[in-house]
């Protein structure tokens, strides 16, 4: 429990590492004088993928998992960090070296409607990668396309058909065949089944498993849905707001998640077993904008196990909940654009847009006995915001109520002997463990 590391290593040292990602960052925008803060889509990510394994990458939409997949394939240029593929740092490749490397790593896309150009026949679509790389002779290319068609469960006569004439599942098979054309070692599967009917999903998953076996492929399987991942992945990484929160062997991670975020995700999976007593953890609010991610732990704004500051440990759950929600409201206001009129009104002291805040506060703390020591700070913050300075209010609250979760980035803690890593302060010795905290806090509801 106490072993910490800046980055998780692969536990089974015997396995050969195919992809090694170190401190990868991908930011959008933020350059130039007038630009706002950058969108931190991927904000410092470390992991490895072993040859022949399937690593699942799970997270809500917008958490940066697709960006991560695309950055791995050099479809986006990373802002920082390195990606080593089979010993080569691919972030430094360019020109013909990059093109040559692309043969090794391909992608299957989420939306079969959008991933196939429907002005081309299926044969042309699958052949295009071969054409682009001048692969052997024309006849051999066509032969290869036919072989690929049968490998993904389609037939020869589909060669001259257009994508329009296919169902979603068949289109996805075409997409898979195209990704396999250049005999890659590594495939990024970007939510390959989430756009398909449930009945078709299972077929595509088992096709992917068969192909992995047959061609000795390594997968990065991106999904927003934990249950899909459970069947196909050897290990799973859980991502939230540009960070990997937890990483570990699939079954173990499902049985006994360490990280508060993983716990809440897994508790949300509907269980067939009615005797199961695990409580469903509902997360308040929505993930913050990746433009305005918390300074410390990315999950700090919604975490059910968040560490409280020393001075406030004695407060009631309800009061503390109210404080956190109120901070959320103020954060939201501080992101708003006040506009020219807003600024002008603020200048002459007639700002009124946030006059509803008092009402919001009384809603949040309805039926809760707010101690004086808290009340003064809340009122002060409301005062700042109402005058038109929500950022000042936000800072004030941060000064007063922030804990280690808000302020400091956690470390990766190895939480079990099987190379499981969790990104949370609670795994440090000085704090109470996650489980008791969550069960105490949720049972009060």
């Amino acid at each position, binding site marked *: 429990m106490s072993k910490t590391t800046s980055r998780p290593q692969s536990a089974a040292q015997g396995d050969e590492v195919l992809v090694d990602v170190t401190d990868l960052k991908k930011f959008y925008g933020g350059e130039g004088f007038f630009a706002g803060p950058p969108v931190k889509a991927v904000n410092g990510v470390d992991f490895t993928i072993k040859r022949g394994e399937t690593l699942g990458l799970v997270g809500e939409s917008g958490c940066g998992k697709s960006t991560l997949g*695309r950055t791995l*394939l050099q*479809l986006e240029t990373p802002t920082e960090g390195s990606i080593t593929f089979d010993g080569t740092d691919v972030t430094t490749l360019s020109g013909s070296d*990059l*093109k040559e490397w*692309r*043969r090794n790593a*391909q*992608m299957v*896309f*989420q*939306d079969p409607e*959008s*991933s*196939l*150009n*429907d*002005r*081309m*026949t299926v*044969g042309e679509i699958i052949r*295009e*990668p071969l054409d*682009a*790389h001048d692969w052997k002779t*024309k*006849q*051999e290319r*066509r*032969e290869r*396309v*036919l072989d690929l068609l049968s490998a*993904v*469960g*389609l*037939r*020869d*006569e*589909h*060669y*001259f*058909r*257009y994508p*329009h*004439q*296919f*169902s*979603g*599942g*068949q289109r*996805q*098979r075409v*997409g898979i065949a*195209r990704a396999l*054309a*250049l005999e890659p070692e590594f495939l990024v599967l970007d939510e390959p089944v989430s756009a398909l009917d449930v009945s*078709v999903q299972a*077929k595509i998953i088992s096709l992917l498993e068969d192909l992995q076996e047959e061609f000795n492929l390594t997968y990065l399987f991106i999904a927003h849905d934990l249950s899909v991942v459970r069947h196909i992945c050897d290990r799973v990484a859980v991502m939230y707001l540009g960070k990997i929160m937890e990483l570990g062997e699939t079954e173990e991670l499902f049985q006994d998640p360490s990280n508060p975020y993983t716990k809440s995700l897994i508790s949300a999976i509907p269980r067939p077993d009615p005797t199961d007593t695990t409580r469903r953890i509902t997360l308040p609010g929505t993930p913050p904008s990746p433009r305005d991610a918390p300074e410390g732990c990315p999950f700090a704004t919604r975490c059910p196990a968040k560490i409280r500051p020393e001075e406030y440990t004695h407060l009631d759950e309800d009061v503390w909940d109210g404080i956190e929600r109120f901070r959320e409201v103020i954060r939201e206001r501080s992101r708003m654009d006040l506009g020219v009129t807003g600024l002008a009104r603020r200048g002459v002291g007639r700002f009124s847009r946030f006059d509803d805040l008092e009402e919001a506060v009384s809603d949040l703390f309805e039926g809760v006995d707010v101690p004086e020591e808290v009340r003064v700070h809340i009122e002060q913050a409301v005062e700042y915001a109402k005058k038109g300075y929500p950022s000042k209010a936000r800072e004030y609250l941060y000064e007063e109520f922030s804990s280690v979760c808000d302020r400091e980035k956690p470390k990766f803690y190895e939480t079990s002997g099987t190379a499981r890593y969790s990104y949370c302060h609670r795994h440090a010795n000085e704090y109470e463990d996650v489980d008791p905290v969550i069960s105490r806090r949720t049972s009060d509801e």
Partner: protein
Amino acid sequence: MSETTSKSIREDLTQRDELSLYTRIANNPRPFFKWAVPMLVLIAVEFPTYAGVAFGMLDAVVIGVTGLLDAAIGLVSSGLSQTIRDAQYAVVGVLRDAGGFVDGLPTLFSREVIPNQGYQTGPNGPWEGTFLGLEPAYAWALRATLIFAYALFTAYWVFRGWLVYRDHYREADWTPTDDIVDNLSNHQWGKFGIFVLILFLTMAVFGSALGPTTVEQNIQSPYSERINYFNEDTGEVDQVFPGDANFNSKSKGSAEFNVGPMSYDDYGRFHPFGTLTNGRDLFTFMMGGARITMIVSALAIGGAALIAAVFSMFSAYYSGRVDLTILTTADGVVSIPRLLLLILVSAVFANHWIGNVLNGGFLLAIIFAFTTWPFLWRAVRGPALQVAQEEWILAAKSYGQQPRTIMRKHMFPYIVGYLLVYASMSTGGIIIGLAALSFLGNGLGISPPTPAWGRAISMGQDYVSGPSWHISLLPGLMIVLLVTGLNALGDGIRDAIDPEAGGSAEGEEAAAGGGG
């Protein structure tokens, strides 16, 4: 499908060297020949006309391109530009010889085969020199009708060729284009547009055979050869220069000075659209104008569309700074008043020979292309941006496809429809612009005496309310018809490519069967 089809597909695809159209035709030649033999006959009967048009266009292209090169390189080295001019003279000389040769060849629907120019031998006597002794009006009407019928049928037969290919020789049994063609062929308004376009293209190609007389004889050198006519005063057949005849056939807005539509002048010459203020035949004038108008507007819109297509794909593919640069350039171009630019350029090139290519039309085409592309670019940038977001573009990048190929294969097919829609609609503006320039005159527009529609309108503007109303009205109506037709065509294509508007293309349910 059966085992055998599957096998033969595999054989087809892997055993043969090349999956050529030729092998497929060789396997099943009947449908091809049933189409190709009539097509050959259709071409053969009018071959000299087509060859003449082709040589004429080549000629203009050679002069135009070398002219531009000359103007550009002349700034740097006069020696090089001299070489270019020499090369140009040589090529143009060959082309003109070839053109002269095919001009001399007979065609089926020519004025030699069905002549309409003749003279009466007595006050009510028979006609001499016309086809089967018919009255000139009937002879002319017969020839014109035959030419239009021939042109429409040929156009249909070309389309038929595509149908034969689709049904017998194409590997795919269905392509997205089929839907577009089907939609268009159910679109009455769009078909009207195609019909109008064919009509005017026919005028451009067969113009010299369509007129009751020729531009050469009636307009350009009316004093080189005399024609026969029956002189009512003397009761004899006399001879007169067409120029002198024109002088006495003027339409000047009064009862005695007017030759209206569908009437004869005193020299037994038939005027389907009447005469101009200078006594020339308006219909012949319009036919001559059709060719120059169609060529100049086609060049202009073609150039504009090409620039717009390339720039819109660059905008969408690279976005960011590239897009911004193009945007700024486009805004810059739009902010230049077109008329001012035309006057400026016309003045600068007034004495340069490039100003005479296509009778000044080449320069006009360049200016119109230059001023039109920003509008087309703006119109197709949206669709281009949309395509650039599609995942197949990302997929193509992921296997290292070249940007050039990505634009050509994965973006262009999706914007070409919109390009056609907006191009056909903008062509109307160019045609009106051309007519407006000729209307203004003063060194603008196509240089006289080459016919230009706008000049006819301008000549007749004093006589709009009077017996000579035809001089302005008929050319005006023709322009309106053409512009309306082009808009109809644009509407048709838009409805055909947009399944939402078409309605019927929706619901192409998976028909491929198997798997998935």
